[in-house]
């Protein structure tokens, strides 16, 4: 625990403030991107934003100008439908130009409705069908160990996505192999496409499930950078690590927050203005 405290002390106020500012800008980019395309998954984009920002601007090692750098940390967005959030983060990280976000979902665009590594360098896996990211992440983590490399693998999972059995196949195997170089972050916004997760096919007690599969398990506020960085940067104990990040679907905009219909609803022009107002004045 002493080591965790050391990390926490390094998370000075400036760093947390900077991440918070970036997240605010990312949410503005997301809402503009989705409003322009008239398509997207704004609810999940907003719930996962702070997790993505923590990883890309706080935790992960990568070179956006050399996206295939062999020693990069691997990142997989298993909930691939939240591509607008990922693209907004990648644009800010320098993988491509900010103005190219306007290409989102346009015909023949490199920024499709789900990420595609054949179109955009830096994407490790083409996700979209749920339950694919964690098995691939397990393979990356095994690969790093076999190759005696020190890179780590991060996988963001939706909570509803955990109803797919393939996740538990992967979770079981990661626990079995003690993949301390693997981290899963569950975006626990408690809503899936049509209803609450607990009303559809309940996931709780979610932490107990991961723990039973041999993972170091943490639950925290997925919109608190201090908590996110503290756990993400805590040294590995030799087991895979999972963060159940309690989030709010649609976080940041009052009329989107926690409303199931905003899973993939598109804001009107007026709503877009209102959303940006809220995001930039909060």
């Amino acid at each position, binding site marked *: 625990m002493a080591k965790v405290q050391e990390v926490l002390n390094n998370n000075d106020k400036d760093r947390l403030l900077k991440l918070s500012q970036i997240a605010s800008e990312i949410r503005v980019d997301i809402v503009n991107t989705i409003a322009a395309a008239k398509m997207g998954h704004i609810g999940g984009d907003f719930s996962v934003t702070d997790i993505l920002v923590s990883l890309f601007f706080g935790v992960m090692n990568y070179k956006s100008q050399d996206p295939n750098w062999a020693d990069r940390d691997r990142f997989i967005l298993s909930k691939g439908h939240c591509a607008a959030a990922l693209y907004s983060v990648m644009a800010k990280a320098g993988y491509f130009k900010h103005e190219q976000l306007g290409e989102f979902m346009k015909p023949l665009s490199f920024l499709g409705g789900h990420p595609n590594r054949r179109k955009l360098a830096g994407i490790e896996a083409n996700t979209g069908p749920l*339950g694919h990211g964690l*098995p691939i992440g397990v*393979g990356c983590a095994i*690969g790093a160990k076999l190759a005696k490399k020190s890179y780590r693998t991060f996988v963001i999972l939706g909570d509803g996505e955990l109803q797919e059995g393939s996740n538990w*196949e992967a979770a079981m195997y990661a626990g079995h192999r003690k993949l301390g170089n693997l981290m899963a972050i569950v975006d626990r916004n408690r809503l899936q496409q049509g209803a609450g997760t607990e009303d559809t096919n309940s996931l709780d007690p979610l932490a107990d499930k991961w723990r039973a599969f041999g993972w170091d398990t943490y639950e925290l506020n997925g919109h608190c950078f201090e908590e996110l960085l503290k756990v993400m940067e805590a040294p590995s104990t030799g087991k895979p690590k999972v963060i159940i990040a309690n989030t709010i679907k649609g976080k940041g905009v009052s009329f989107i927050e926690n409303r199931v219909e905003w899973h993939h609803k598109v804001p009107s022009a007026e709503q877009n203005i209102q959303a940006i107002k809220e995001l930039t004045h909060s």
Partner: protein
Amino acid sequence: MTSLSQQETFDCRKIFAETLIELARQDERIVAVCNDSVGSSNLNDFKKEFSDRLINVGIAEQNMIGVAAGLANSGFIPFVSCAGPFLSGRALEQVKADVAYNMYPIILCAQSPGMSYGELGPTHHSIEDFSWIRALTDITLLSPADPKQTKDAILWAVRANKPVYMRINRFKIPQTTPNNAPFEVGKALVLKEGKDVTLITTGILVPRALEAAVLLEQQGISARVLNMHTINPLDKKAILAAASQTRGIVTMEEAITTGGLGAAVAEVVVEHHPTKMRILGVSHFAPTGSASFLLDHFGLSVENIVKSACELAR
């Protein structure tokens, strides 16, 4: 000449395992990924020599394919070895998204394909793989006929740097590929020239097609025999040559006929040079019986191949 049915027969799993070990000795990127199938994939020797490079995920095929994709992402060349029905069927979406769509260099090795688990029934038959995998156009789909072609296919696949699916036959067959015949992916191997009718075959049915050709010859019918070891990409040139130079085409495959080799040949023929065809293969879930019995049951006997060819050659 010794009849094919009297020649020594081989199980291709042995050459698969031997070739994999040879490759692994030369190249540290080679890993084997399997689903509790170390024994049935003949991987025990590989495991002895490269214990850390044998990734056995247990009975979890979806995870198996995802793990292979992650290993490919990390610079490895995964050979995924798994009984055919569970490789193509159980994990089909992973094969589509994680392997084909990602375009990762993964070699999917379907062990004991077709109806080689005869009596175990349709759950353990892999007769749909030609149709399913052919629909994933980014995967090269190989169906080697004998140990020589199996080895050649593996040696090609490891350098291909793209997704490959290949059948590793369990059903014992004689070598039909001449020792000096090159393995050219996408190019049918002409085993016998002929001018009256063409037999297009693949995998374990190649010996039966050759035997049928001998019997046809005795009836004065000259049959061309093509070993279509690559189902995708298909050798359209050889098919069109057959369509234009002979009076009809008989296809035969140890696979369901909806969408398999015969259907693929028909697509080419019907669009570019319509000709008469007979598509021999599996028509529905198989009854109980040995692999050999089931091949005959579904009309893949030498006699029925001869009969079908005669109908077209007349």
